[in-house]
């Protein structure tokens, strides 16, 4: 029932789900953190903003940790090649992820304006860095990365850190930044005291508009300015995972999949519908504004994933070293076992995560933080 090809597609989809989970769930934490000093005008307001995310950011971050673990288990070549190749970028990302837990916790431990300001800016930086680096990394995938494998499947990186800052990759970083700023502000508009929520609505609307413009721009650029990759010759979908067994043609379009599978267009449509919904519903009662923002996030990631398929990590310096869904996975046994574990545990995770969000529901008001701040 689960042949190797099917399992590989399922695991491609599961990594997509984890990535979307990370972007939606932790994305708003990063957005709120990045906007901490913009939306929060004084100490009480900033505490309100922090308390909207403090009880849940830790669980949300696990989407990222689990994403790393799942890529390791299901796509070990991708894990190895991307993390070591993007070495300095990964280090910067790690610093952002290290500074965050201590930032949230330590900030509240000393009552001194400078102390709090320093941690505030650490949190702001961690938010901006993660949003930008993830976006820039995604953009670089479309441009192809400089790496090749030798016969032992040892990867050599043929480029440098600064070569990653190519114009399209930077644009893609800005798409990610504006999208998640809008998303974070949408969260604040829903969860924070009304004084702050009013500001958050404005910020979210503007950021979301910027996002739509940049997203469209990136799409046009991708269609007309960037050559696509395609597997040349017969596509073997169930061979042993060894990227060196295929040829890759560069020069087509990244939209080839969209032309053969019209339903792929559902992804960008979802992104636009989400962005439109955000403009309409944000600032009203309920969670519809935030929900629409989440749709936009999901639609954006799906759009990129569909365009790349079946490529995971294209190589510019040695196209046939590119990693694809068909030649970079774990063995069939590992994929099957991990699928079993996921089928059992993902619903449980969603269940208790849902419960915790329900327990923590409602706005965090200024009155509340003036009286008591959680004993974090």
């Amino acid at each position, binding site marked *: 029932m689960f042949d190797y090809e099917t399992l590989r597609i399922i695991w491609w989809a599961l990594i997509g789900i984890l990535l979307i989970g990370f972007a939606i769930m932790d994305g708003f934490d990063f957005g709120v953190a990045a906007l901490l000093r913009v939306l929060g005008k004084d100490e009480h307001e900033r505490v309100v903003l922090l308390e909207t995310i*403090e009880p849940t950011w*830790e669980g949300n971050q696990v989407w990222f940790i689990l994403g790393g673990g799942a890529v390791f288990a299901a796509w070990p070549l991708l894990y190895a090649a991307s993390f070591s190749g993007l070495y300095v970028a990964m280090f910067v990302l*790690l610093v952002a992820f290290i500074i965050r837990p201590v930032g949230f916790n330590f900030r509240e431990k*000393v009552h001194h304006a400078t102390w709090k300001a320093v941690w505030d800016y650490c949190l702001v930086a961690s938010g901006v860095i993660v949003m930008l680096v993830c976006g820039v990394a995604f953009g670089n995938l479309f441009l192809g990365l400089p790496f090749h494998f030798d016969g032992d499947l040892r990867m050599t990186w043929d480029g440098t850190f600064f070569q990653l800052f190519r114009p399209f990759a930077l644009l893609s970083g800005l798409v990610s930044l504006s999208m998640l700023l809008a998303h974070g502000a949408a969260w604040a508009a829903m969860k924070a005291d009304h004084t702050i929520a009013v500001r958050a609505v404005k910020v979210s609307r503007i950021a979301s508009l910027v996002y739509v413009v940049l997203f469209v721009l990136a799409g046009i650029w991708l269609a007309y300015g960037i050559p696509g990759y395609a597997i040349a010759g017969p596509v073997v979908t169930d061979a042993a995972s060894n990227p060196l067994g295929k040829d890759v043609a560069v020069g087509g379009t990244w939209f080839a999949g969209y032309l053969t599978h019209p339903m792929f267009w559902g992804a960008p449509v979802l992104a636009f519908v989400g962005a439109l919904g955000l403009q309409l519903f944000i600032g009203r009662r309920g969670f519809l504004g935030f929900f629409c923002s989440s749709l936009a996030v999901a639609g954006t990631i799906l759009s990129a994933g569909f365009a790349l398929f079946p490529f995971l990590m294209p190589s510019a310096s040695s196209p046939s070293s590119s990693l694809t869904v068909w030649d970079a996975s774990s063995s069939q046994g590992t994929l099957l076992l991990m699928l079993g574990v996921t089928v059992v545990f993902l619903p449980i995770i969603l269940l208790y995560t849902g419960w915790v969000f329900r327990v923590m529901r409602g706005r965090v008001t200024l009155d509340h933080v003036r009286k008591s701040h959680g*004993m974090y």
Partner: protein
Amino acid sequence: MIVDPDVVGLSRLQFALTALYHFLFVPLTLGLAFMLAIMESVYVMTRREVWKRMTQFWGVLFGINFAMGVATGVTMEFQFGTNWAYYSHYVGDIFGAPLAIEGMMAFFLEGTLVGLFFFGWDRISPLKHMLVTWFLALATSLSALWILIANAWMQNPVGAAFNPQTMRMEVTSFKEVIFNPVAQSKFVHTVSAGYTMGAMFVLSISAWYLLRGRNIDFAKRSMTVAASFGLAAALSVVVLGDESGYAVSENQKMKMAAIEAMWETEPAPASFTLFGLPDVKAKETHAAVRIPWVMGLMGTRSIDEPILGIADLVDDAKVRIADGIKAYDAMLVLRENKNDAQAKAILAAHDKDMGYALLLKRFMDDPRKASPEDIQKAADSTIPNVPVLFWSFRIMVACGLWFIVLFGYAFWRASKRRLEGRRFLRVALWSLPLPWVAAELGWIVAEYGRQPWAIEGVLPTALGASSLTSGQVWISLGGFVLFYTALAVIDGYLMVKFARKGPDGLGMWPKKPDAIPTTAQTA
């Protein structure tokens, strides 16, 4: 291709530093989480306010430590990919799975519930909150279980075989990977060490309050919990530490011989060297004080089975390297023609030794061209650092025995309700750093003792590294050292500050003992 030895050395240093650093916080999280759950359970059963305040106060210190554990844990999850890319490719099919399962089964639960522990006091019923704390504690230990399953596979790689088509190890039996005997003893040993650390943390800080005459009722109750929990944990860590030693001798004879500085095979049952000065050059141990029989009994659970010495193990390695070269040659043939029956048969016969041929890759590109001198050099490289292992092990064991004595005595005093003795309190206070000493040394024995292997007998550490430049690793290593040092200073400052403030300074407990609240109130 030979990886730049500087990159390997720097990457090893970085991994060791970040892992040892991470391991300062993790065991305390393991232990404190259970102590919190126990204290809160007493609160829910008796509804006496003091137990709630205890949970909350120790919870504040738990929170500071937890943040550091999470922050430094992210590095660990990603460092395999950044610095050990070939390792990740070579064994990701097996090693990645327990890490991902850890995320799904344990860390997600832990991360989701910890927020509720801090922010849920007024939002859910006491019973539900207690369950949250219990699940938090269980999740931290479950997390350790999966990490140790992954680690145990590095020490004893069962249930996997090499696939020449994909140039990596692939799973043959997940059951063997999960029920690895090394994983079981390591798990119990490691979490018990964590529980001991948590107990010592509470015991020592409470002892300080008693010495200062502050928070007396609060501190006495905390000490009682710490003494009983700590005694059980300390007994478990030593008894099951012995189990862990037994597993070591079965699977990693060389590590055992190095821990004992046993240069030559002794007639069974071997003696245990209590003290000695291992001399690596002369291959002997000076001034040795030996206790007859003990080692043979501990290591083999028999009186007639010998424990192999280092010299014999090096000779074994030479044979395995020669066989490994045959497997390596067959692997290269199969890479060109996957149906070559003769090569298949050779690889099947010797694939357990192929890792030994890879030891030669540190010295040459093609192991098939190795001379007898090269093979000797590679075989010698299987000896880990004997003096470091010898002494790390002995200090760790001494700490472990001391914990049994201290917690046993504390337990006795607690049951007699005579916790006040100043000399006892001072000893309890000054024992505070010892669990950290023992835990870090335990890591060194287990992981430094595994060298030169990343995966015992399968993949030498030197091959596992990424193809980076040493400049890149210098940047990250320098960054980590600076950054982690700054965090350590801040963490230490906050821990001391809040421990000093104490429950009375934080407004959780009255400054005068006559005003103890006895009825339930909201915090």
